[in-house]
């Protein structure tokens, strides 16, 4: 594409990033006739939830499970509403529900599935005096879900304590919520606790029959069919301002593309960094929570090894430490996902186990190549040691393994220090200090696959369509 040609083009909106938030935002804009361009640094869409090929296997980058499973097919359910906004048939996602998952702490395990009554029963068995409080918590959160979990800057632990008086149970309940969506160390915001509790425990977990790729294909097709344009391998290196408003972006190959507004899913800090004229006048505390994930391909079904859960959240000590660890990876807690143990319509073709732990981003990003490779081997082993304490060992059955570190996440998302859930303080309305520059994605508020899409749609609706 010649630069002259580019300068002639002017878009209504340029979206930075073809992750789930960018794709969803793009579909809305293109559908309602805005001339839209998504610019993606990578050669593939999906961001943190993309896919790749290694060792002869098709592997997903991030996907454990999709939250917000709509088991009753309610039209008012968040996923159903989201798909209506995107004009995609919910059934086309081919979501297959989890079987049974588990939260394991020393001496106590709680199992759960996509029916919250089952978890309630489990709690009644292990913590009989907590049952009534737990039921009140569920009612309360269902009520909150009706007004969209409006922002209330308060402690999530404090909120849970109103209903769960047993501190051990509180740790067990907050552990999965934090792993699947908390940007903050130690505590989690009140709204996020409620939102994640609703998404994980009340609605529940599923996986797409054909992996994340099928969902990305669906979104991309919908976007392009609506007239949206996508440029991959195209990085925005600068957001250009004129009289205090965005006038266009500059690409890695030094081309100027003009536009009336920019939506950025690059992260708030990262966005201000490429928009230097404004300076960083919103003081942002960057997030520090990052993860490492091991992917194991096995020669046997986990079921044949008596591993029958869909997902296991574990913690080896009595308190759950959700914080940046001093060591490269903290194997005292983790999430183990068995993608094969979901109720698929057709059998899966590969046997896989994925293990996620909290990791120290600085260590992995600063390590030189030699140390990086060696540390990956070492921590694979330490992780497997820890995991075999809480479930049958599958070490002998591994035929291929790979590990994602914060360094990989940084490469995939562009997020400084490879944080997964962004900065702890969110910008729910998407507004920045520049009037036509908006934030979507992780730093806007909602996280996860469904959350990122909902956030993208909400910012577009609020800021660019009405």
């Amino acid at each position, binding site marked *: 594409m010649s630069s002259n040609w580019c300068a002639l083009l002017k878009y209504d909106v340029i979206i930075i990033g073809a992750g789930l938030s960018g794709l969803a935002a793009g579909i809305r804009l293109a559908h*309602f*006739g805005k001339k839209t361009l998504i610019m993606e640094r990578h050669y593939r869409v999906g961001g943190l939830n993309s896919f790749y090929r290694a060792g002869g296997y098709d592997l997903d980058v991030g996907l454990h499970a999709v939250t917000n499973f709509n088991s009753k097919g309610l*039209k*008012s359910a968040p996923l159903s*509403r989201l798909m*209506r*906004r995107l*004009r995609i*048939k919910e059934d086309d996602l081919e979501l297959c529900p989890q079987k049974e998952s588990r939260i394991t702490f020393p001496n106590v395990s709680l199992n759960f599935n996509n029916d919250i009554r089952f978890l309630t029963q489990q709690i009644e068995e292990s913590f009989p005096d907590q049952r009534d409080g737990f039921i009140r918590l569920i009612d309360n959160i269902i009520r909150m879900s009706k007004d969209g979990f409006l922002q209330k800057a308060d402690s999530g632990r404090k909120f849970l304590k109103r209903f769960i008086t047993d501190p051990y149970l509180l740790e067990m309940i907050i552990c999965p919520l934090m792993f699947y969506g908390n940007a903050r160390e130690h505590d989690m915001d009140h709204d996020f606790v409620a939102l994640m509790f609703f998404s994980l425990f009340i609605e529940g977990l599923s996986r797409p029959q054909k992996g994340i790729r099928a969902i990305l294909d669906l979104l991309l097709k919908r976007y392009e069919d609506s007239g949206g344009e996508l440029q991959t391998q195209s990085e925005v290196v600068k957001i250009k301002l004129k009289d205090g408003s965005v006038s266009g972006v500059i690409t890695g190959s030094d081309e100027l593309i003009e536009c009336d507004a920019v939506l950025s899913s690059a992260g708030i800090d990262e966005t201000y960094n490429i928009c230097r004229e404004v300076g960083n006048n919103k003081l942002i505390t960057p997030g520090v929570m990052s993860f490492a994930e091991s992917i194991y391909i096995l020669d046997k079904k986990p079921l044949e090894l008596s591993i029958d859960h869909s997902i296991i959240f574990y913690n080896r000590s009595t308190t759950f430490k959700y914080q940046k660890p001093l060591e490269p990876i903290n194997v005292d807690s983790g999430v183990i996902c068995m993608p094969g143990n979901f109720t698929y319509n057709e059998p899966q073709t590969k046997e896989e186990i994925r293990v996620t732990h909290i990791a120290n981003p600085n260590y992995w990003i600063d390590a030189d190549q030699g140390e990086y490779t060696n540390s990956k081997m070492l921590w694979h082993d330490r992780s497997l040691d820890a995991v075999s304490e809480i479930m049958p060992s599958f070490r002998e059955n591994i035929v291929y393994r790979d590990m994602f570190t914060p360094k990989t996440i940084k490469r995939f998302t562009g997020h400084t220090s490879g944080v997964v859930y962004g900065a702890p303080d969110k910008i729910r309305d998407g507004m920045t200090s520049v009037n036509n520059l908006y934030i979507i994605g992780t730093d806007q508020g909602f996280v996860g696959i469904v959350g990122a899409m909902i956030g993208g749609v909400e910012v577009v*609706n609020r800021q660019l*369509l*009405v």
Partner: protein
Amino acid sequence: MTRESIKAAIIEIINEIVPDEDLSDLDHQKPLRDQIDLDSMDFLDIVMELRKKYRIEVPEEDYDELSTMNSTIDYLLPKMESL
């Protein structure tokens, strides 16, 4: 456009937004939202589709006019007659 063709246009829009609703026996006197599972965002989408397809602006203060099929047609007729 005639009342009939405006009605068909509205049905087509609702059908795109909620494809699996049966719209064949809507009561034109009764509020649409009592008969079809439409939330406020769906409603907004109807307004935006009208803008996209027919370049009709429905200001927020007029949203109440779109409550039943008949009131919607009444409201849109002067705006769409000449199309």
